[in-house]
C-alpha cells in the first residue's frame, strides 16, 4: 500500500535532519550556557505561590524608573532580606491592569493622575502614599542644530518647524507640555505644527531624527538619548509639579513588607540613588530642608 508511510521516512531526509539538529543544538546550547544563571534567578520555578516565600514584594512601576528602582531593590534586599520584583509598564496601563485584578503589592507611577483615580476607588491605601521623586520638563532640539530659545513663546513667533510632544491623552508628559504651552498662550497657534507621539521616548526620537525642530521631554530622558541638545528648561511655574507617587495596594497580602519598601524609597540613601539617575526630590521636601 503506497499510502501507508512511515512518518520518519518523511523527516529522515538529510536537509531536514540537519535543520532540526541545528535548531535543537541552538536551544540546548542556550539552555546549557544559561542554566547556572537560570537556577540562580529561577525563571524555571513554577507558578508563584504567594503565601510561601516570606519576603517578596511585587511592584508595578512606571517604565521610566526601571534603572533606579532595580538598583534600589538590590540595596534594599541586602539590608532587609526582602526581595522586590517589578513589572514595568506605562502608568495608565498599570493602573488599568490593577483594576482588572492583576496582583501587585506596591504601585509607583509617573504623575499623580493615575494614582488619584486608584485612591478614589479604594484600590490603594490612601495613608500609605509617598512622593518618592520629581522630574522637570525641558525642550530639546536636534544636536548641533544651533537652535536657541529665550522663551516658550518664541517657538511660535521665531520658528516654523514641527514640535514633538507626547500625546496629552496618552502620557502625562504631554499633559505637562500642553499646560506649559497654554500658559505661554501659544497652544492654539502651535496646533497644526504639533507631532503628538506615544510617549517621551518617541518624542525624543522625532527630534533626534530631525523630523521635529523642538520637543518636550523629561529632564531624566535627555542623558539616555543621543542626537539631541537641551535648548531650554521649561519655566518651573508653567506646569504642575511632576511627581512620582507610590502607594501600597489595598488587596496586597504583603502590606507590611510593601510599606517597608516605600519607607526605604523615601530614605536618604534612596534619595542619593534617585539623584544619581537625574531625578529630583519632591519640591516640598526641598523646601523643608
Amino acid at each position, binding site marked *: 500500500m503506497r499510502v501507508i508511510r512511515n512518518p520518519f521516512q518523511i523527516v529522515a531526509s538529510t536537509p531536514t535532519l540537519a535543520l*532540526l539538529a541545528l535548531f535543537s543544538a541552538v536551544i540546548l546550547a542556550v539552555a546549557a550556557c*544559561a542554566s547556572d544563571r537560570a537556577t540562580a534567578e529561577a525563571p524555571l520555578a513554577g507558578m508563584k505561590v*504567594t503565601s*510561601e516565600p516570606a519576603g517578596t514584594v*511585587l511592584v508595578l512601576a512606571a517604565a521610566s524608573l*526601571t534603572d533606579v528602582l532595580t538598583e534600589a531593590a538590590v540595596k534594599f534586599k541586602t539590608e532587609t532580606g526582602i526581595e522586590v520584583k517589578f513589572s514595568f509598564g506605562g502608568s495608565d496601563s498599570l493602573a488599568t*491592569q490593577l483594576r482588572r*485584578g*492583576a496582583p501587585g503589592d506596591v504601585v509607583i507611577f509617573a504623575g499623580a493622575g493615575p494614582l488619584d483615580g486608584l485612591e478614589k476607588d479604594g484600590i490603594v491605601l490612601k495613608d500609605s502614599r509617598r512622593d518618592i521623586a520629581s522630574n522637570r520638563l525641558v525642550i530639546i532640539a536636534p544636536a548641533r542644530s544651533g537652535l536657541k530659545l529665550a522663551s516658550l513663546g518664541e517657538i511660535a513667533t521665531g520658528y516654523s518647524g514641527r514640535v514633538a510632544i507626547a500625546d496629552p491623552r496618552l502620557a502625562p508628559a504631554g499633559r505637562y507640555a500642553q499646560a506649559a504651552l497654554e500658559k505661554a498662550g501659544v497652544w492654539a497657534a502651535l496646533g497644526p505644527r504639533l507631532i503628538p507621539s506615544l510617549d517621551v521616548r518617541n518624542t525624543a526620537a522625532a527630534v533626534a531624527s530631525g523630523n521635529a525642530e523642538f520637543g518636550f521631554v523629561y529632564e531624566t530622558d535627555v542623558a539616555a*538619548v543621543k542626537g539631541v541638545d537641551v535648548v531650554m528648561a521649561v519655566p518651573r511655574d508653567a506646569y504642575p509639579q511632576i511627581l512620582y507617587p507610590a502607594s501600597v495596594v489595598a488587596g496586597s497580602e504583603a502590606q507590611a513588607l510593601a510599606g517597608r519598601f516605600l519607607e526605604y524609597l523615601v530614605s536618604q540613601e534612596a534619595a542619593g540613588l534617585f539623584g544619581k539617575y537625574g531625578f529630583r526630590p519632591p519640591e516640598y521636601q526641598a523646601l523643608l530642608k
Partner: protein
Amino acid sequence: MPSALSIVLLTLKISAAAMLIVIPLGMVVAWTLVRKRVHGRFWIEVLISLPLALTPVVIGFALLSVLGRNSTMGRFTHEIFGWDIAFTWVAAALASAVVAFPLSVRAFMVAFAGVDTRAELAARTLGAGPWRVFFTITLPMAYPGLLAGALLGFARALSEFGATIVVAGNIPGETQTLSLAIFNRISTGDDAAAMPLIVVTVVLAAISIAIHNHLLTRAVRLEANRSQREARG
C-alpha cells in the same frame, strides 16, 4: 537585570509551553472542521481567527478578566491553592497560545485537507478503528504540514508582546520575554542593551522560517510524487 541568555531560555520555555496547548487542541479543532459536518462552522472559524484581527491588548485584558484576582477563577486558584496565574509565566504561555492558535490551526486545516480520504476509507474497510486510521494514515500523511503549522505558531509565540504585557506583566526573570525585554530597554533609552536581544530574535526567526519552508517544499514534493504515481496508475 537578567542576562540575555536567561531571557532567551525563558522565552523558549514560554513558547514551548504555549505550543503544548496549541498543538493537541489545534489538531482536534482543525481535524473536526475539515472532516466533520459542523453546525455554525463559519462562526467557529471567525472565533478562531479573532486573535489574528484583534489587537493583542484586548486579548490580554480579556485573559486578565478571566485569570485575575477579581474573577471567579482567579479567586478560586488564589484562595484554594495560593496561586496567582495572572503575572506568572503560565499566564504568558496562555497569552502566547491564544495568539498563536489561529496561525497553527489554519495550517493544520490545510494539512488535514490534503490527506486523501480514500486512503482513510480503505484502512477502515480493512478493519482499522478511527484512532488507528488517524495515527497510521492521517497523521503520517499530514505530518510535514502539521509541523510547519506548529513552527509558524511557535514563531508567533516567540514574538508575542501585547497580550503578554497585560496579563503576565513585565517582570524581569519571570515573565519578561525577549519582546518585553527589548521594549523595556528601548523605552528606557538603553538601545545598546537591546541590540543583542534583537539579534537573537532574528536568528530564532530565521531558523524557524528555514525549517518551515523546508517542510512546505517537502510536502509539495510528496504531493507531486503521489499524483504522478496515481496518474501512472
